């Protein structure tokens, strides 16, 4: 068959220039927020295999993960300037288009027989690819294989990018979603764990960049006008016209990047609206995937956690409250003084001490992987009571839709990195009633939760990114709408920054 360059392939090629360049730039923004890559699920400081920052953290003072981010230039990352939330929005908006495009492309390859352009049908292709490699190294141009539109080495390299690298980047991207990773936790472990997946996802980015670094010079060496004309017109009969149109297309892509970067930095809420329209329809489906993991506090290698991964290495991502009330609670070891209020839109509002919580929990614990939105992870065994059980006790009234959790923490007062406001979070009832949504009061069988990790009582939302697992919990309120609380976006970071309440990805 004549493989040629069908119109849908040419459109896909152009769209992928946009998608992949947006994914790379927004991916770098996400990397910037925690620019360290690890092999172990426990991201113990100093053990990363790569760092992409010029910042040295304080050596003898406690620091939070919030301060570990790096300020990448908007010329490199999208949008740059420490805007993780907006970088995530663009990554997810683009990934929606990228995956849709890839699936359509994959189906079209299958039904039209065009898969032959990427899949070798004979072992000779590999031999020929070796000859082609030698030809390139000899500074000569290998010829296309008979019946093909490009040579065997091109066939294998394009096939690798389209049929191996792309599915791998999609898979490793999907398994960075806490909802997916923690629902299919066995697959997560099979893939090497959260940090190996994150590292592999980054290496896929390197793979794309390396591909472009080789692909672009070769386009010029094979003849820029000739090659680009094929990707525009489907043939090279009019190379000047095709080359000019392609060049204008590239200029358009660059202009798009400039406009989108500036627009994002100027009006993040507009980007948020766009994200909500494009991403929420599919990200809301992930509420059907409750977390169901149970780790053994070990690495995937099965080795005992040991000192390196003890509770003090469970990263802290916030600063404990500094009110006299909280300090008094801490001084008295919480046990006698702390009272958790549960009220709002319920039949039986109640207060519970830690002793009562412990009694109700009846020894229940879960050992789970914490997915920080920035990128770190830690495994912890949390003892506590499921929110669903507490809700059954207080009996929400008909029409109750959400549960709001309020912390002792006031961000502006307690953490110099952020501006004022009480820290709060809210969950839709479906998330509150997930089996591993927990009110925890003990970590790693070592007694009370340390102050940096949310003592005395905290929330664990295992299907969401970490910041929604509110620490230093003061009270729980069942409500029939959350959108009238403060800015109405459902949480502190949702209100003050650019994070969706749906943090399942």
């Amino acid at each position, binding site marked *: 068959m004549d493989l040629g360059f069908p119109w849908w392939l040419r459109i896909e090629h152009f769209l992928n220039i946009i998608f992949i360049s947006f994914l790379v730039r927004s991916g770098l923004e996400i990397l910037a927020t925690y*620019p*360290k890559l690890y092999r172990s699920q426990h991201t113990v*400081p*100093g*053990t*990363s*295999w*790569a*760092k*992409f*920052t*010029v*910042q*040295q*953290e*304080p*050596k*003898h*003072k*406690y*620091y939070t993960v919030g*301060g*570990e981010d*790096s*300020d*990448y*230039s908007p010329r*490199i990352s999208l949008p740059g300037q420490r805007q993780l939330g907006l970088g995530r929005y663009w990554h997810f908006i683009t990934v929606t288009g990228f995956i849709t495009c890839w699936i359509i492309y994959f189906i079209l390859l299958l039904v039209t027989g065009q898969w032959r352009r990427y899949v070798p049908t004979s072992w000779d292709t590999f031999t020929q690819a070796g*000859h082609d*490699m*030698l*030809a390139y*190294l*000899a*500074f*000569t141009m290998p010829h296309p294989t008979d019946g093909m539109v490009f040579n065997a080495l091109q066939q294998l390299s394009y096939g690798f990018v389209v049929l191996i690298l792309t599915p791998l980047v999609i898979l490793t991207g999907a398994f960075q979603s806490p909802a997916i990773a923690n629902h299919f936790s066995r697959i997560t472990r099979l893939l090497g764990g959260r940090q190996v997946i994150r590292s592999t996802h980054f290496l896929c980015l390197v793979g794309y960049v390396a591909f472009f670094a080789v692909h672009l010079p070769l386009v010029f060496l094979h003849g820029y006008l000739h090659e680009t004309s094929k990707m525009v017109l489907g043939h090279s009969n009019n190379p000047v016209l095709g080359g000019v149109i392609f060049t204008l297309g590239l200029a358009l892509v660059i202009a798009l990047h400039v406009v989108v970067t500036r627009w994002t930095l100027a009006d993040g809420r507009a980007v948020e609206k766009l994200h909500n329209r494009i991403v929420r329809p599919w990200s809301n489906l992930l509420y059907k995937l409750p977390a169901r993991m149970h780790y053994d506090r070990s690495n995937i290698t099965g080795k005992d956690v040991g000192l390196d991964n003890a509770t*003090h290495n469970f990263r802290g991502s916030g600063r404990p409250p500094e009110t006299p009330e909280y300090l008094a609670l801490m001084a008295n070891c919480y046990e006698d003084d702390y009272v958790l209020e549960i009220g709002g839109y319920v039949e039986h509002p109640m207060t519970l001490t830690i002793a009562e919580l412990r009694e109700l929990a009846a020894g229940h614990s879960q050992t789970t992987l914490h997915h920080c939105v920035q990128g770190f992870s830690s495994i912890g065994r949390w003892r506590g009571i499921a929110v669903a059980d507490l809700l059954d006790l207080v009996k929400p009234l008909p029409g109750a839709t959400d549960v709001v959790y309020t912390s002792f923490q006031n961000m502006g007062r307690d953490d110099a990195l952020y501006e004022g406001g009480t820290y709060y979070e809210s969950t839709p009832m479906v998330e509150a009633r997930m089996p591993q949504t927990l009110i925890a009061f003990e970590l790693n069988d070592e007694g009370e939760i340390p102050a940096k990790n949310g003592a005395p009582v905290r929330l664990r939302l295992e299907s969401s990114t970490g910041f929604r697992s509110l620490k230093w919990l003061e009270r729980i309120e069942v409500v029939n709408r959350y959108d009238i609380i403060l800015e109405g976006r459902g949480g502190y970071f949702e209100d003050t920054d650019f994070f969706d309440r749906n943090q399942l990805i």
Partner: protein
Amino acid sequence: MEDENSPALRAGVDFRGTPNATQPVLEHIKPGKKRAPFWRYIRINLPRTTRLLIIAVIAVIGGASASVALSNHEPFLYATHALWSVCGAAALFVAVGLLTSARIWKWGVPIALSSLLIYLGGLLGNAPYVWNGASVVSAAIWNLTLLASLAYLVLSWALRCGMIVAAPDHQHFLD
């Protein structure tokens, strides 16, 4: 308790009395600039892999040089002697690199530069290119001496910048 919470003290490094003891410090940013040069943001800590990579690149230079020397296409007068010298130095480099833990990567630079010089000499002479009558394989191997030499110089620059480290060195990340 202090040593438990200080990665630096645990590693035997004491920053007390310096700004970095209690504050984050940004490195490599020149006065008046907001950010450091791009490559300063990259720090890879895979010492053994890097060491093997360095050895492999020098082995390619040595192997390719030997292959060119064995061919009947001498790039210029006495080039065979120079190629065998590079090959011998590369073999020594690879042996020392594999059998000891010596910091040898600086010694790879003269090997790479010598190989590069021979290639440049070939440009002025009768290098085994296809258009000079050499086979595709011979031309590919000849060009490999250029590409591997350039690759080694890039690796050497990355090592000097601290982007990568080779065993027995280590990045000593203290975060």
